[in-house]
């Protein structure tokens, strides 16, 4: 069991499956010799060769479209999109084909691929390198959308994504690629792909988050504990399909919820969760479900990016509003 960062855990999961599954391919821009711009695929080329770890031309439509074609032949491509901000040329292929190949052929062909993309802000990157648009994918029936928030969950969820027979969008919160380390056992054990993870149990307030924001949310929970507010902290992890049951159970218990995400608020995944919670917990709700999110404006360049993203302070302020609601 080695202590490792999330990006190392992701690398490990790919290496594990490249060994276990002869049909697995890793492809994308700069994934080969360079080992990926974040080093997520480092050394894979050396170990598995250029036929299995493939540098592609610079064309995201083609990367995803080609991966779809490969997948119909029973290969299992893991395609890296260098940054989530560059996945949009592939939207047509994802929406019209990856998500539909199985349904369109009534199960004759399928699309067992994984699209990996680093996402989110906070690392002082250039324009387009910092957005979070998971909601766009979550809205597409036929796609799974998975977001790890710790090295161990990254390893195990990526294994699950690779082994899943359907297309998975696997979004990697790059702000915490190297921010936290954790022992990860390379035992090949996968997690389920449609459950939330309850990171802390609590009775007063449910804090719901995913990706890099889980770190801020946990910090907020620490602060609140000092105020004697006991938070249940849930890492949603699979934003589609969503594990509504866990979320509903928690909020029906605590009666209060704050949802935290980096993406803009309007029509973000937080909206879906809030809508679900009011539908199923209305009579238990002691306060409105609040959302702490990126603003509904363009993610600023690096000088101001931290002003845009939810901070511990903003989470605390929403939590206090919810706790003091009506009083």
């Amino acid at each position, binding site marked *: 069991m080695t202590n490792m960062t999330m990006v190392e855990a992701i690398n490990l999961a790919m290496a594990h499956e490249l060994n276990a599954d002869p049909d697995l391919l890793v492809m994308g821009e700069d994934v080969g010799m360079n080992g990926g711009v974040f080093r997520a695929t480092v050394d894979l080329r050396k170990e598995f060769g250029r036929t299995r770890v493939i540098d*592609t031309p610079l064309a995201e439509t083609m990367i995803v*479209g*080609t991966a*779809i*074609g*490969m997948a119909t*032949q029973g290969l299992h491509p893991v395609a890296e999109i260098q940054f989530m901000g560059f996945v949009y040329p592939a939207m047509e292929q994802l929406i019209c084909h990856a998500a539909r190949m199985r349904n369109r*052929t009534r199960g004759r062909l399928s699309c067992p691929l994984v699209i990996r993309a680093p996402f989110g802000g906070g690392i002082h990157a250039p324009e387009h390198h910092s957005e979070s648009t998971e909601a766009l994918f979550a809205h597409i029936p036929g796609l799974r959308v998975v977001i790890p928030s710790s090295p161990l969950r990254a390893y195990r969820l990526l294994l699950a994504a690779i082994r*899943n027979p359907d297309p998975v969008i696997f979004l990697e919160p790059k702000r915490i690629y190297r921010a936290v380390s954790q022992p990860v056992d390379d035992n090949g054990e996968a997690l389920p792909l*449609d459950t939330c993870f309850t990171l802390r149990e609590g009775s007063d307030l449910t804090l719901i988050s995913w990706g890099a924001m889980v770190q801020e949310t946990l910090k907020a929970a620490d602060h609140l504990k000092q105020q004697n507010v006991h938070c249940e902290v849930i890492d949603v992890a699979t934003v589609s399909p969503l594990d509504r049951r866990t979320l509903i159970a928690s909020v029906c218990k605590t009666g209060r919820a704050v949802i935290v995400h980096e993406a803009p608020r309007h029509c973000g995944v937080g909206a879906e969760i809030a809508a679900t919670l009011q539908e199923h917990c209305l009579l238990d709700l002691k306060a409105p479900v609040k959302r702490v999110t990126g603003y509904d404006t363009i993610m600023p360049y690096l000088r101001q990016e931290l002003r845009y993203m939810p901070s511990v302070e903003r989470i605390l302020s929403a939590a206090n509003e919810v706790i003091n609601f009506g009083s």
Partner: protein
Amino acid sequence: MKQKYEFSVQSHRFINSAGKALMPLPARYADLQLLEQAYEQMVLIRTFDQKAIALQRTGKIGTYPSVLGHEAINIGAGLALHQEDVFAPYYRDLGIQYLRGVSFVEQLMYWGGDERGSCYAKQPEDLPICVPIATQFCHAAGVASAIKFRQQARAVLVSGGDGSTSKGDFLESLNLAGAWQLPLVFLVSNNQWAISTPRYLQCHAETLAQKAIGAGIPGVQVDGNDFVAVHDTLTDALTRARTGHGPTLVEAVTYRLGDHTTADDASRYRSQEDLKKAWEEEPIKRLRLYLSSQNAWDEKREQALLQRCKVTVEKAVADYAAIEPDVPTAMFDHLFATLPEDLHDQYEELRRQTQEASHD
């Protein structure tokens, strides 16, 4: 210092519109059997096509894109493919699909709005019809990559229209096919129109075949109304692909003799004269004239063929009519390999409502 790089594109035609061979046909057509078979298939496809249009008019199927004028391309390509090759069609490839084993019933189901039409009982690997223009080129590149990865001696044929050559996916795939030297043949059915947009508004280049040059792969133009030109060129290109000699782009020049689809009215945007001129070039007549000139065809055989085609098509239509609609919950059955728990409620709701509706 000045250096000059030179490139070229060949254009092939063997049989002209009067049914006359412009030069000796390649050896594989010496025995006329292949040409007779091709002719029969072309007539069958046209018979089915006319029936399908009629079925749309009476509401038995939905919007349908006629292949009128594409018969030589369809049958030329279909006969050039091997069973173990993979075909990635677009929506005007009825005949290629038919020769691949996709039945007329499946085709009617597809155009009739029933997803089961893409099950392709006899053709497990071919891709389904791709509605978003040009996206199929990328899939085909992926299939060809898989074939290359597994070192199989198979080729992939992917097909699209002249309009599709303007879209990025086509060009990105062409480039990839060159960079990776894929066993992939691109077939562009240049029928002069993308709905109402004429070929010259689509692209300023003299030929569409020359798009291959930018990808560093061979490009060839053929007379798409000449079965021999289509079949011969594709046969060679597919052989090269199967034997590790890389990709080819083939532009087959024809004319869309019908409306774009049954939802279109081409008389809004093109002249009767142009259409009349195009009819002189149409593929079926010229092959019949050639076969007749070789004493391999006559009116009696023609009538017998038409009768056979009619029976085949009528049988397919009857079989299609007998098919029960799918259960509505099928829309969930193939969404994922297994339905996620999160969707059980919606599945139940649909099932319940369908039952209620059927009890009304």
